């Protein structure tokens, strides 16, 4: 649905600063109906990247294809047409203060030349969809941050786009509003069959709603894939960013050998412990770790300290790997560091 091929965006040198390579050869694909995330620290080029998708920024080189149309080959007026099938939601909502909630939702319909009666009907329907049917006449100034973003989402959906772009859509919201907005995004994706590309600097957002993600750093893709895959892939920077490697609890015992184990729905900790303790007779304690829900599945990273039967450890690692468990021995030096 969205395909970027080797896209570069270079901002020319300004008076003081030299030229800035914001996006440096990024290729990525988002399938129809997928909820994809682009995550990275500030300054990694995320915001520029999302603007390349609807050509708010024209790429310096490379191609952008959305819904089968190569946008980078279209003249400006056709790009404008194409933008109508790509909704966009912004960090600071960008609603017009001069219009009511309903008036804001009608804005894109007005631009598309939709008649007044139809605009009214559609705005009411969309405000109902985002749970603000009773606030149609409210001005943005009278709405909370979460409500403003809901109106902005309704506005983005007004012209029935196939693609929704979200630029840090929850970064200006508190936790409760964030959860509400993310749930809404997920729901409209499911109900309307949208393809969503969401930009964020918060891993929690990716974990809550995305099916797949791209990790961006200094304008380049560091890692990407479906969350279910990267979490069970060895040495995946994205997987490690989503579920950081656990640190041994300071109060835990010392000595023995440390194992870092990733548990999933398919290979839960009960299976891992059963293998180590039950089958192999090792003495194991949990030195640290956490288990969370990611992309609807249960994933965890545990740090296990094997204090008894260390000589059987290599065999244990082999057994676990054979069972499809992602496991690695933590070198002793690493423990000293901590």
């Amino acid at each position: 649905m969205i395909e970027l091929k080797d896209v570069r965006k270079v901002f020319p040198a300004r008076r003081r600063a030299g030229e800035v390579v914001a996006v440096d050869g990024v290729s990525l694909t988002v399938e129809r109906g997928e909820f994809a995330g682009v995550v990275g620290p500030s300054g990694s080029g995320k915001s520029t990247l999302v603007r390349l998708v609807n050509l708010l920024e024209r790429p310096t080189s490379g191609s952008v294809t959305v819904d089968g149309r190569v946008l980078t080959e279209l003249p400006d007026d056709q790009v404008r047409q194409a933008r109508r099938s790509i909704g966009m939601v912004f960090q600071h909502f960008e609603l017009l203060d001069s219009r009511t909630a309903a008036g804001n939702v009608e804005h894109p319909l007005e631009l598309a030349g939709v008649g007044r009666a139809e605009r009214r009907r559609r705005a009411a329907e969309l405000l109902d969809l985002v749970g603000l049917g009773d606030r149609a006449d409210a001005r943005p100034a009278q709405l909370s941050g979460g409500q403003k973003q809901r109106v902005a989402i309704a506005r983005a959906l007004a012209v029935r786009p196939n693609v929704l772009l979200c630029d840090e859509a929850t970064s200006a919201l508190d936790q409760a509003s964030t959860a509400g907005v993310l749930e809404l995004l997920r729901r409209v994706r499911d109900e309307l069959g949208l393809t969503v590309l969401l930009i964020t600097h918060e891993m929690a957002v990716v974990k809550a709603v995305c099916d797949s993600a791209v990790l961006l750093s200094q304008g380049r893709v560091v890692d990407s894939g479906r969350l279910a895959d990267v979490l069970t892939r060895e040495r995946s920077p994205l997987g490690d960013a989503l579920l950081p490697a656990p640190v041994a609890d300071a109060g835990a015992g010392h000595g023995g050998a440390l194992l870092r184990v990733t548990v999933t729905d398919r290979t839960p900790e009960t299976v891992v412990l059963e293998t180590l303790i039950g089958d192999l007779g090792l003495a194991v304690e949990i030195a640290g770790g956490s288990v969370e829900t990611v992309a609807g599945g249960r994933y965890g990273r545990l740090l296990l300290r094997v204090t008894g039967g260390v000589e059987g450890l290599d065999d244990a690692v082999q057994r676990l790997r054979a069972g499809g468990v992602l496991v690695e021995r933590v070198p002793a030096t690493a423990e000293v560091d901590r």
Partner: protein
Amino acid sequence: MSDWTRIYPQLLDATWETLYMVGVAALITVLLGVPLGVLLTVTAPGGLAPRPALNRLLGLVVNLGRALPFIILLVLVAPVTRGIVGTTIGSTAAIVPLTIGAIPFLARLVETSLREVAAGKVEAAMSMGARRRDVVRTVLLPEALPSLVAGVTVTVVALISYSAMAGAVGGGGLGDFAIRFGYQQFRTDITLATVVLLLVVVQALQWAGDRWARSLAHT
């Protein structure tokens, strides 16, 4: 003091002349100054339609218009006035220099107002497939409206001040009245009465403008 009955009708005439000059000049100023302000904004570097050369030229013309003392402008544009109105004397003739003086003033105020509209709102409209003229029509002007109304109010008050000088070209009005009856006939009471009248007009205008701007603001 019995001569007030003689002076009063003339004061009334002078008031109407001022209102006529300022009213017509304000109308033309808004019609031409707002588009000029829009042009200044959109052609600026980083604007909707950057045209650096055109922008510099417009900026120069606008600055020239604002830098000239009004009394000089009055004399300088006399040929233009004759071309448009057919004469350089009278209230109608005074409207030409008043308008030419006020347009650059309002254009700068309009430019400042439009610049204050958040760039993100413009970007949001672009993401909906808006054309540049749609952005001006549906985003920039409506979002800046309270500030534009305030700018027009300031411009009209400035026009009243300018119009006092129009007496120099026989434009009539309250300023002219104060000079002829008050100053030249050593009638301080007439001068003061005129000043009070002007003050009332300016206060009423400012009050109405502020109220209107406030009723439009939804922030």
